[in-house]
């Protein structure tokens, strides 16, 4: 039942990832006429996804971005996704909740920004999303406030990397737990979605799940949205938002099959992710009376420590992030604000070896020797908060891409706080690996998950959207993705993006009553 471009639909949702898909389903369930525009294809994972990293590069957003600053952010495989489902097509499905104090870093430390939403307004949405996706995790969960209920399913099995991290942490007195992952530890049924089979431990989450066990949006909220009558229009790349004399957006312009098309609408929900959301607004010179669009770029501290072990690990097996510790959420006697989590990591071979070549600079026989140890490697990763900084921002470059649109240039440099946190984590992770028996330990410095650029806040002078995700400048424009996060949080963002998406949809629907 596709809507026609000549009719005025209630809402156009731009992007079908963690920010767009849940909201799309919610609006459709409320009876609204909604159309989602997605730049990429609508894949059939069972037949289209190969267990091959190179073949799966098709899931990465590879329109070129320019990475500037002292710590240039790698995009492509490490960041945005393309296709119905967005970056959830290649996320690791690691779904820890933010803790209440993540939302008040300014109150607690005098730096960064507080969220304009109290934790108790996000918590019910965490409950809902976890149940709907079928998140597998431990109950009770060892950190943060007591939960009202249990995770939908028990935790997934622990792979070699997880066992080693458990072993090392035990000796150091660091508490660990099986992590919460949005992949099914048992078969699962949801109304409006149908049956999904349990995870087979393929370990390929970051290059696409071919079985539907991982809760990417294309096998969860997208089917639900379709069930409720939403239309998904794939391979539709949005270029313009057209406003009328009142300043409201009336039409969304996009390219499809090489042709320009237009969709008239009453509301627009921009869910294209931190980079593309900001780029589209800057190109159209919209919603930026605050001057904040593109500012406040943040990227999680995400140092990895790798080691080789005598044991056979075969790091391609099992959910990659099997184990977690949040003992470092607010470390005692720390010389930095905020904190981080610790995560065991398995890894696919090409990802591991190419990042090792980059970081260690190994080549020749040294590279081949190190590669032979692949079956014996395991990693630990942190995921930590990042403070906004005036020097970290996105701008439009003069250089144009193949669509003749300006490429985004993203400046990022770790500040003193990120450097101190990373040094703290470097020591702890090396201690854990040493206790677990690692040899040839090496560090892969990195930042992950680009966040910010359209900050939410209480004040139209310093924020782009309000706490409901509504633009201060354009009343019929909402933003729902990681661009609105006022602070980076000390956890992976996907679960919080989905929770906020449902909250934004509900607030929007309440206002229209």
């Amino acid at each position, binding site marked *: 039942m596709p809507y026609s471009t000549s009719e005025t639909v209630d809402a156009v949702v731009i992007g079908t990832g963690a920010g767009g898909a849940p909201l799309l389903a919610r609006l459709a369930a409320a009876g609204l006429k909604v159309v989602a525009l997605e730049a990429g294809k609508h894949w059939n994972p069972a*037949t*289209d*996804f*190969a*267990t*091959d*990293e*190179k*073949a799966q*590069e098709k899931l*990465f957003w*590879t*329109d*070129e971005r*320019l*990475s*500037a600053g002292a710590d*240039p*952010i*790698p*995009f*492509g*495989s490490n*960041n*945005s996704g393309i296709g119905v489902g967005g970056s959830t097509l290649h996320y690791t499905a690691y779904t820890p909740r933010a803790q209440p104090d993540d939302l008040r870093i300014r109150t607690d430390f005098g730096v960064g920004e507080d969220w304009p939403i109290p934790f108790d307004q996000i918590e019910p949405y965490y409950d809902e999303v976890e149940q709907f996706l079928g998140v597998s995790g431990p109950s009770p969960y060892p950190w943060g406030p007591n939960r009202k209920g249990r995770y939908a399913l028990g935790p997934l*099995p*622990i*792979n*070699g990397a997880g*066992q*080693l991290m458990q072993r090392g942490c035990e000796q150091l007195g660091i508490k660990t737990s099986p992590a919460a992952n949005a992949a099914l530890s048992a078969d699962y049924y949801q109304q409006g979605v149908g049956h999904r089979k349990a995870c087979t*431990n*393929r*370990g*390929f989450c970051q290059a696409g799940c*071919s079985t539907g066990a991982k809760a990417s949006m294309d096998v969860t909220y997208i089917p639900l949205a379709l069930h409720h009558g939403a239309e998904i229009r794939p391979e539709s790349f949005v270029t313009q938002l057209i406003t009328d004399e009142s300043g409201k957006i009336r039409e969304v312009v996009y390219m499809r099959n090489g042709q320009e098309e237009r969709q008239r609408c009453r509301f627009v929900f921009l869910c294209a992710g931190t980079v593309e959301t900001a780029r589209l607004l800057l190109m159209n010179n919209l919603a930026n009376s605050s001057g904040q669009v593109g500012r406040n770029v943040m990227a999680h501290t995400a140092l990895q420590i790798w080691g080789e072990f*005598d*044991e*056979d690990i075969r790091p*391609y*097996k099992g959910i990659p992030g099997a184990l977690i510790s949040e003992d470092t959420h607010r470390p005692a006697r720390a010389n930095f604000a905020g904190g981080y989590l610790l995560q065991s990591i398995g890894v696919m*071979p*090409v990802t591991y*070896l*190419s990042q*090792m*070549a*980059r970081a260690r*600079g190994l*080549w*020749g026989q040294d*590279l*081949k020797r190190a*590669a*032979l*140890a692949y*079956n*014996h490697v395991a990693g630990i990763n942190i995921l930590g908060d990042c403070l906004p900084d005036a020097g970290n921002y996105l701008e439009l470059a003069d250089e144009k891409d*193949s669509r003749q649109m300006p490429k985004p*240039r993203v400046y990022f440099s770790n500040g003193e706080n990120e450097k101190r946190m990373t040094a703290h984590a470097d020591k702890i992770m090396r201690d854990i690996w040493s206790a677990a028996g690692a040899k040839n330990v090496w560090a892969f410095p990195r930042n992950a998950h680009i966040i910010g650029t359209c900050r939410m806040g209480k004040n139209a002078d310093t924020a782009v959207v309000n706490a409901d995700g509504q633009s201060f400048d354009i009343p019929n424009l909402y933003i729902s993705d990681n661009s609105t996060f006022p602070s980076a949080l000390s956890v992976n963002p996907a679960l919080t993006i989905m929770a906020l998406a449902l909250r934004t949809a509900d607030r929007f629907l309440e206002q229209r009553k």
Partner: protein
Amino acid sequence: MPEQYPNGTVRALLPTDQVTEATRKALTERLEKAPPKPVFFSETEFDLLKAICSRLIPQDDNQPPIDIAGGIDERLAQNKSDGWRYDTMPADGEAYKIGLAGVDETASLLFESPFQSLSEEQQDKVLQQIQQGDAPGETWKKLPANRFFEELLAEATTNYYSHPLAQEAIGYVGMADVPGWQRIGLNQLEDREPRVVKSVE
């Protein structure tokens, strides 16, 4: 703990029902692909690129060698990106062309001969200096030598280890995942996962 894995493991698994059709297609095409002629690079540039790649990833063990440079040429000919580049670098294709000329320039300044006429030891010396960002040459005033090297090495590594034969050599059979993996803990192997044949020291 350097080890050696048996030959033929991935090739034996590919035709079986332990591999999905999509996976089999992707890997078989790569396995059977004939070494391509350059489209983006000139023949001269392409020969130089191949010579550099064979120092970055020596292939005494593979006859014929796994194609690395052809994948780079193909990507650049299609104007494809991996999604980002260092802002200090020119566009990928330009960076490669400038960088290749720079390798020969450094080789001539250090050893008075183009790169391909040098001994392996001399070639490695040239590449080391480029990697460390202290190679002589006008080229490196306009192109950051260390970044050029890093990008080239990362792409060469990606192309090489995406090949089924390189994956066989490191004992990787993750593509045979239709039955799933039940034995995922430490020292737990499924029958189809190769055991080390011997340690090489």
